[in-house]
């Protein structure tokens, strides 16, 4: 199938879905709407709301007398904090990135450490499994208590999600280095430090990058869920506020913004992945 046909078919799915939504919510069939506006809003309302949110938000930022810099933009107590959609997006983005960076760094470090020390790995094994099996949402209230309503309680939630994905992948990556490559590297004269740099590290990173989409996605999930459960800013907060007033249009608008936001981030991840995993055969790189 060629590219154009594929794109057309993909667009067709959206058109049909939005069409059904529109008819159900705006065209009475036999006197009733099978998707009542109160519960489902309408595509036109949602589109208008998304547009207004961004337009108003831009106006608010533009007319703000305070100097616009990053620290002011995310400072909830700053007088200019108008809670525009841009600020919500920025805060969610910052929380997600911090969660990813901290979670990935910890996952790589501990994954490596345990993979190279079988005894430690055996000792910690049940605890790691236990923590991983725990639904992370139950930790959110604890993090709120510990770290407050600011961004760090959301970052912490994201970290607990990202850490395990990266940890397991790095652990696996170090454990499953091809024995032939390892023996070859040893025979070439590599010492432990050189083996780490030239064999274990690239192997572990390749495993980590192959799970990049999942871990970045989970970082954002952690941020949004954290915001939803208790915060004063962010996309999750926006959606939660709309829900609190039965503002279905607001909830759907938040979901649309979140979906587009995640798509854009995913696209960036694909770009990064393509650069970093250039040595991988296409089939193997595609599996991630």
């Amino acid at each position, binding site marked *: 199938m060629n590219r154009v046909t594929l794109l057309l078919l993909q667009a067709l799915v959206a058109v049909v879905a939005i069409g059904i939504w529109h008819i159900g919510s705006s065209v009475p069939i036999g006197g009733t709407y099978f998707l009542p506006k109160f519960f489902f809003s309408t595509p036109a309302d949602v589109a208008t709301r998304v547009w207004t949110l961004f337009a108003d938000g831009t106006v608010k930022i533009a007319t703000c007398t305070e100097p616009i810099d990053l620290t002011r933009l995310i400072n909830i107590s700053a007088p200019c904090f108008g809670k525009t959609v841009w600020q919500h997006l920025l805060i969610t983005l910052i929380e997600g990135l911090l969660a990813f960076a901290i979670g990935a760094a910890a996952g790589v470090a501990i994954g490596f450490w345990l993979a190279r020390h079988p005894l430690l790995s055996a000792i910690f094994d049940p605890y790691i499994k236990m923590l991983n099996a725990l639904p992370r949402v139950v930790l959110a209230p604890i993090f709120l208590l510990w770290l407050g309503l600011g961004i760090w309680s959301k970052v912490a939630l994201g970290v607990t999600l990202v850490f395990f994905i990266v940890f397991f992948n790095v652990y696996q990556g170090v454990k499953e280095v*091809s024995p*032939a*490559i390892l023996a*070859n*590297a040893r*025979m*070439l004269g590599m*010492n432990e430090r050189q083996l780490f740099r030239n064999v274990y590290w*690239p192997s572990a990173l390749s495993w980590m990058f192959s799970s990049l989409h999942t871990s970045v996605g989970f970082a954002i999930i952690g941020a949004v869920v954290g915001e939803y459960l208790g915060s004063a800013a962010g996309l999750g907060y926006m959606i939660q506020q709309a829900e609190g007033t039965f503002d279905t249009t607001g909830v759907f608008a938040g979901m649309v913004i979140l979906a587009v936001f995640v798509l854009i981030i995913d696209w960036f991840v694909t770009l990064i992945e393509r650069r970093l995993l250039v040595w991988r055969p296409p089939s193997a790189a595609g599996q991630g």
Partner: protein
Amino acid sequence: MSDRQAERETAAQHAPAAAISFDGVAIDFPVAGGASYPAVTRTDLKVGAHEFVAIVGPTGCGKSTLLNVAAGLLAPSTGQTLVFGAPLVGLNRSAGYLFQQDAVMPWKTARDNVAISLEIAGTARAEALERAQGWLKRVGLSAFGDRYPHQLSGGQRKRVGLAQVLIRDPKVLLMDEPFGPLDAQTRQIMGNLLLDLWALDRKAVLFVTHDLEEAIALSDRVVIMSAGPSARIIGDHAIDLERPRDASEVRLLPRFHELHKAIWGQLRAEVLKAYGEDAG
């Protein structure tokens, strides 16, 4: 011919020690239940400093095991290995090992894979890359330096592996069915490449293969191993074919056929025995 023989004899008299010398080497592998599986029984074998020795035997006879002992990757259960007269402890630092499987690092380009051999020994990166390019040229890959292993064919990856090992200039070359996974034509081309490179300085080579024709075409001596368990050396044949040889054309010589017939007669029984064991 007679000159070469004389040369060899004097060399033998003056040579301080063989490149590799297995001295009563036996290898047992532990199996479940505390028992052990005798893979190789007491083996004595010497590989001269400039000698190309091939080990042939049925599958599973412990040829590769013996090679791993020579590399120091595996310690023998009894006996010892001498490398240029000194007992081998740990990895064999004077040996280069070409593995049967792909062992080049998939995350490095062909050039980096070759250069890393020098870099880990302390050569500056710029110089290492330059010399790596020289070796890539020698193995016929000068235009492929920037390719990653998955962008190369199986034969090309073997060439990278060969350059990676030879750039260190090891005194001994250990090869474990290096061309095994390649197709017949590529194998002969790789055989010729190996002979050309070997002719430059005649390193000691221990070449494990299951392909008798390849063994005869390349080596000075063909050693036959019996079927396992308790594999041992059951034959040692000098290959008196003139060098330089062409790995494919040498197969047409009458002498090649005589040698092949003589050695195959011995090997055949062992191969059948190995299949019999498998069937049982």
